[in-house]
């Protein structure tokens, strides 16, 4: 696979973020070498109210909490998590 080939990332949205996006799941093609932060920018661009997704939301890559600088790989599951409110 060439280094320039785009990656496919599954983005999961929950609660308020899913409402803002009008969906709880997006499949995005992103450039090779993209970071979590880069994927978030693409998600934000699709929202009618982009500011509804804060600059540094909680994010989990393949079900483990991560940060905006992590690089994504093809097939990754990136979850964008509003502040949790269980209990």
């Amino acid at each position, binding site marked *: 696979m060439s280094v320039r080939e785009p990656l496919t990332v599954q983005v*999961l949205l*929950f*609660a*308020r973020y899913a*409402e803002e996006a009008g969906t709880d799941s997006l499949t995005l093609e992103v450039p090779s070498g993209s970071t979590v932060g880069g994927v978030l920018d693409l998600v934000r661009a699709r929202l009618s109210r982009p500011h509804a997704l804060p600059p540094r939301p909680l994010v*989990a890559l393949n*079900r*483990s909490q991560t940060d905006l600088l992590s690089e994504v790989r093809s097939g990754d599951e990136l*979850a964008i*998590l*509003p*502040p*949790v*409110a*269980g*209990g």
Partner: protein
Amino acid sequence: MSAAPRRVVETSLDAGELRALVTDSGHGAVVLFEGVVRDSHQGHSVTSLEYTAYLPMAEVTLEDIIHEAQRRWRVRVEVRHRIGRLTVGESSVLVVAAGAHREESFLACRHVIDEVKARVPIWKRERYADGREVWVDPTVPTLPGESG
């Protein structure tokens, strides 16, 4: 998820069943925490709640929290969190901690519910008597008039 129990469930919670999973004949002190849907929240009259979860991560996080508590204290711990729609008076979460003595059972139970509320990816949407529905965000107080 292999044979691990499902701890995030859509059915009503049973404290007696959960207690039976962790107690043994060396245990002298069982502490149970039960979270219950209240009829009000920050001045709003609540009629029902809806919990939603990022299920696979919620299960992994609960397992981590339980193992951490069991390493820190000599106790056995179990947790169940209900999701879906709940009405006032129904239980949303159960934590049971069983140990030889009450000190460790109380500490473990309190620690686990605090961690559950802080770390497990579960969200809560409140439905108010006036018909509005609001996602609860513990990081900012809900303002009257603000909506979902």
